[in-house]
């Protein structure tokens, strides 16, 4: 079953083409990687999927629902969540509060309930807190929940960001360079976490990553974007052997080594 499907997506900013006729899909229950040189349009593609950029042509469907006419917060409600290359946690909020903010779209208490703090609202608040703590435990954070999130060490902040994304209860989680700036030990843990997100939570993962070693180990399918064009799609092995990909990356001579 296809969870995310892009067909003929083209995006341009003041005349320069960022994405050209991109076809792309993520099946349910899969880990898919998107690679490509800097400036290939990977992050722009993420922004199209989350509804921040509106492509001029094409269609993007999440679970069969067309999202091009939707606002970003509505796309989130359909089950898309993402993290950022540079961690973006809410300042002046505790770790738990950051994660709880991710559940805004999954709560039913109305504004009047909240102002009057009705019993139903308090019960829901307790449920939200419990779920947020569950997400934090899931990503391996079992302490420091009351600390201001932006004061945590970098590697922990990344985990909080993933926990916050999980709190939106997505069907598809987009990770933008989740391994950037992590130590090799932390990268190993990240690999395990990505696998558990898929296996235990049933959430598909789409990641942008430069660490090709990590990409090859974790993903079932790899897609390659270069200058806004999807130039290859296949299993990790097929991609490694694809001459077009090697050329796009570093030129023919060095490419093999880089992707090794």
């Amino acid at each position, binding site marked *: 079953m296809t969870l995310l499907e892009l067909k003929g997506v083209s995006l341009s900013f003041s005349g320069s083409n960022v994405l050209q006729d991109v076809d792309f899909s993520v099946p349910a229950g899969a880990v898919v990687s998107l690679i490509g040189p800097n400036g290939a349009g990977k992050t722009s593609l993420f922004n199209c999927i989350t509804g921040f950029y509106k492509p001029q042509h094409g269609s993007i469907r999440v679970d069969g629902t067309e999202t091009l006419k939707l606002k970003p*917060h509505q796309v989130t409600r359909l089950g898309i969540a993402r993290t950022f290359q540079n961690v973006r946690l*809410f300042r002046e909020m505790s770790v738990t509060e950051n994660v*709880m*903010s991710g559940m805004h779209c999954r709560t039913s208490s109305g504004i009047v309930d909240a102002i009057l703090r009705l019993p139903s609202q308090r019960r829901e608040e307790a449920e939200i807190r419990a779920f947020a703590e569950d997400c934090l435990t899931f990503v391996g954070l079992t302490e420091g929940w009351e600390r201001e999130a932006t004061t945590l060490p970098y590697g922990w902040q990344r985990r909080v960001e993933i926990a916050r994304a999980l709190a939106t209860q997505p069907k598809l989680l987009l990770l933008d360079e989740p391994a950037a700036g992590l130590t090799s030990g932390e990268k190993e843990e990240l690999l395990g976490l990505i696998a558990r997100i898929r296996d235990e939570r049933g959430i598909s993962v789409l990641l942008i990553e430069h660490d090709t070693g990590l990409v090859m180990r974790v993903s079932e399918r790899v897609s390659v974007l270069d200058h806004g064009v999807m130039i290859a799609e296949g299993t990790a092995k097929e991609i490694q052997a694809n001459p077009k990909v090697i050329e796009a990356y570093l030129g023919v001579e060095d490419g093999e080594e880089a992707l090794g």
Partner: protein
Amino acid sequence: MTVFDIFTNQLLNGIVLGSFYALVALGYTMVFGVVKLLNFAHGELYMVGGFAGFLVLSFLSPFIGAGWFGVAISMVLAMIAVGFLGVVIERVAYAPMLSAPRLSILITALAVSLVLQNGMLALTKGQYVPFGSALGFGGINLGKLFISYNQMILVGVAALLMLSLEMFVSRTQYGRAMRAVAVDKDMSRLMGINVNAIIAVTFFVGSALAAAAGTMAGAFYGSLWYFMGFLIGLKAFTAAVIGGIGSIPGAMLGGLILGLLESFATQLDLRGMGIPFKVGSEWKDVFSFSVLILILVLKPTGLLGKPEQERM
């Protein structure tokens, strides 16, 4: 009266005055926190709130009386009405300007202020309007200090409103969403937060608090005037800056500090020090705005505000 009597008396006056400032300052600071707009029309919402409370009370007083119960009902209805007015103003006047340069939206806010002020001027012909409340004159004596029940109720209601706001902001999903939107709007959208709805909630709550202060002021002081929002708007702005604009506890603290400062400063008598000058109550605005200037020069982030972090 001894110095101690003067002190306790001015303390009481300062707390009463400070409660008004704090309630109005909260709306200023909340709106600034979420949309980075200095809503100079906010003081007018206090004025409109006073008149809204007056209208409700004149309709309902035959049934519920014009005592504190009647005033409380009028206050709640005025809060709801002015809350919606705040949302309408945001949608009509500010929302289309949010991506425009900061100065444009500031000028829009001044225009909204003029529209509300002059609208009320036209309706009331510039006359003072008696509020029509019939509050008792009872109270308790603590030594030479007389505290009226009205003062107690007023400060109590203000404290209750502020406590509820604090609970709302810190312990509900909407409050958290409000703080999230204040920090990072795009990230909030990714959390599934409807940013426009949260901005509307912010305007609603801020305007409703101003209306509460307006109704209570009308009931407490006994009359309303189309220009009554102007000065308190500036004072509330000062209070918000003292506390650190954008900070909710800061606005409460700033309001209280400003109220106390005004009531104490006006008692300064320099004649005892050989200077032939006694500061009278006509000097209180000079004190307030001198403090505003001092804070802006010495600690622009205010007492509880945090320096704005620029994203790299």
